[in-house]
């Protein structure tokens, strides 16, 4: 019959999941309950998309590549910060329930979309950007990738600023001035960049009241980074570098 061939997925009775989705805005909100069908190889992003397309078109959420490269779809799933496009429902479904909320530690614009401004402002405040010392007309700096400093920078450089570490960190939760794991991790890659001319200023920037010394090494950042980076180790490196500089050691 026409109805059956039009929607083949409706032929088999579907198991429905209970999905709690946080709805609201900057002034607060609450969890709203939805039901979504369970499917094979389904991700949390699929569930959120299903709800927005079939249950409530007013649901606001963010995504882009949907293949685990851009980091835009990061949300709290059952209390843990994750990329929703890379989180399989089967791995996190508990008692047939899911809980989806916006990333912690960031202001909410609406529903599952957070305001990332402060996250990027802290990246700037940590001076986590390159300060050149030569021009395009000068020869390229011959840097061996196996050099210890370059290796240290390379280990930390794959950050795509998804803010999962920022959401996971309890030090960020307790201190609105704390620059956070991502900004400090990026600063560390530049501390290890021998071509960079802004070292002293950067070390001062990460030594202020919101700086790297607020890290208590609890390791939530490393635990949850989808790119398997280790901001805890990077921040420990920043602590070493700032103390060495303060005590007057040459690097």
């Amino acid at each position, binding site marked *: 019959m026409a109805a059956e061939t039009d929607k083949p997925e409706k032929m088999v009775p579907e198991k429905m999941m209970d999905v709690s989705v946080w709805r609201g805005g900057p002034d607060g909100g609450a969890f709203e309950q939805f039901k979504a069908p369970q499917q094979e190889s389904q991700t949390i992003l699929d569930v959120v998309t299903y709800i927005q397309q079939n249950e409530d078109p007013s649901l606001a959420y963010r995504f882009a590549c949907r293949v685990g490269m851009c980091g835009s779809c990061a949300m709290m799933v059952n209390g843990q910060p994750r990329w929703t496009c890379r989180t399989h429902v089967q791995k996190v479904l508990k008692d047939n329930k899911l809980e989806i909320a916006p990333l912690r530690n960031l202001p909410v614009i609406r529903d599952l979309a957070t305001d990332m401004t402060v996250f990027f402002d802290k990246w700037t405040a940590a001076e986590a950007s390159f300060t050149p010392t030569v021009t395009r007309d000068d020869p390229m700096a011959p840097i061996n990738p196996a050099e210890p400093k370059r290796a240290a920078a390379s280990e930390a450089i794959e950050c795509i600023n998804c803010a999962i570490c920022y959401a996971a960190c309890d030090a960020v939760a307790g201190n609105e001035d704390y620059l956070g794991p991502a900004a400090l991790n990026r600063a560390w890659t530049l501390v290890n960049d021998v071509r960079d001319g802004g070292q002293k200023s950067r070390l001062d920037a990460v030594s202020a009241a919101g700086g790297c010394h607020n890290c208590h*090494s609890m390791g939530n950042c490393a*635990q949850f980074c989808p790119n398997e980076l280790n901001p805890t180790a990077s921040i420990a490196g920043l602590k070493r570098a700032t103390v060495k500089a303060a005590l007057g050691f040459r690097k």
Partner: protein
Amino acid sequence: MIRPHRSHPLWFAFILHRVSGLALALFLPLHFYVLAMALTSPEALDGFLSWTDMTIVKLAEYGLVFLLAAHFFGGLRLLALEFLPWSPRQKTLAAGAVALAFCVSTIFFLSAV
């Protein structure tokens, strides 16, 4: 109820370090106050010290020494983490710190009973 994203060993190590530090900071003024009784009234000090014959007090001392040892060994791990080159074995070191704290405090308890 511990929220799920915190249930990993290094987070527990952080909590143990913080809670033990806080407990010690709260205990110390009492400790200093009792010891200072040696000046004003040694009999009162002896009165306090006689409480240490009670098993429940010995158990409390066991707990206190555990907290001090845990804070100490955990603190050594943190100093190493921050001032020595990074070791990927943080979970092992954290577990080792708790194990050493347990051993030291148990030696204390066995000496006390």
